């Protein structure tokens, strides 16, 4: 018999189950398979009711974030050869409500992200006749690493503060806010500061650093948050010490 590997998958059907349970599947072992391939095999050959998200299969779309042996991973970026001979446990991302099987409810994240004006905020509409916005390489370098976020939410699953404080804005949303704040074309930092500088903004972060360790795109949300803490502190001081301070 050819080699197999056992995959333990968390299952939850809101129509039938009071709480989640685990199902074990024995699947063929293929050196080149990632966890996403295994899930596709299970759905096609063993249990068509299995629900999971996945799309690009190349760590770009951010759809297939899940816990693999208790670590937040992109299922498309996670070779089963690294787990050869082990039981592989696949669960939905930690710290999110489970919608069904491996699918989580992302509404909370989307609301938090939306509240941070995650786009270029400009003071005036610029007519087309004025041409494109130019940036120097240094201006681009200031925010470019933070543009790589694919909203896969691995950082939320890794962060204990997300679990302990429901209101915490969280790593990816704050990193994206930082990305726009650092963009020379943007004027929205003051608008975003209402959220970023608040208790549930950067100050709920205790600098665990796990978000940056698990990020598959090397975005470094921990750095973004600590840098925002510095900016927030200056804003706080400026508002209190300088004449004309507003808050």
């Amino acid at each position: 018999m050819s080699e197999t590997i056992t995959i333990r998958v968390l299952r939850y059907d809101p129509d039938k189950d009071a709480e989640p349970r685990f199902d074990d599947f024995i699947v063929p072992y293929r050196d080149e398979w990632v966890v996403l391939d295994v899930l596709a095999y299970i759905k096609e050959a063993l249990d068509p009711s299995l629900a999971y998200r996945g799309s690009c299969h190349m760590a770009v779309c951010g759809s297939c974030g899940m816990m693999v042996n208790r670590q937040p991973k992109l299922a498309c970026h996670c070779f089963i050869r690294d787990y050869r001979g082990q039981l592989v446990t696949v669960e939905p991302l930690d710290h999110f409500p489970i919608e069904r099987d491996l699918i989580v409810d992302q509404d909370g994240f989307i609301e938090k992200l939306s509240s941070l004006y995650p786009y270029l905020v400009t003071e005036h509409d610029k007519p087309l006749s004025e041409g494109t916005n130019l940036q120097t390489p240094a201006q681009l370098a200031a925010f470019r690493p933070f543009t790589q976020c694919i909203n896969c939410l691995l950082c939320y699953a890794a962060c204990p503060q997300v679990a302990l404080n429901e209101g915490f804005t969280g790593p990816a949303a704050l990193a994206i806010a930082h990305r726009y704040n650092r963009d020379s074309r943007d004027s929205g930092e003051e608008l975003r500061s209402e959220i970023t500088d608040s208790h549930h903004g950067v100050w709920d972060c205790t600098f665990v650093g796990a978000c940056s360790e698990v990020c598959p795109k090397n975005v470094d949300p921990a750095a973004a948050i600590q840098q925002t803490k510095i900016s927030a502190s200056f804003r706080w001081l400026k508002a209190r010490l300088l004449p004309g301070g507003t808050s």
Partner: protein
Amino acid sequence: MTRRPYVRPLHPHWWLRDRRQFLYILRESTSVFVGLYSAILMNGLIRLSQGREAWQSYLDALSSPLGVTVQLICLAFAAFHAVTWFGVTPKAMPPILIKGEPIPACTIIRGHFILWAILSLAVLIVLGG
């Protein structure tokens, strides 16, 4: 089809289940020992203000086996505290550009260790002299 998202409760021993989280809690708990050593130093100041005998008994307590053990434990935790914080320092500061290039994180961390060694050496020389 019903929409009934299930919220899994946080495991009561969440920080013991993952090495990364355990190290984080260990790093945070070092502050207790740093605080304890600060309290020992503050007590030294109080004892100093109470006269020669009080100061001498404070020094005797520090050099007793229990005193030495407590100080060694505090030193170990303070060193762990320093090392872990040096490790995350590059994230906690805005990127410093030299000729348009950010200083590499490892250079910043090494700089902190070198400064730590110089300051420790200076303290030893001053106290030893």
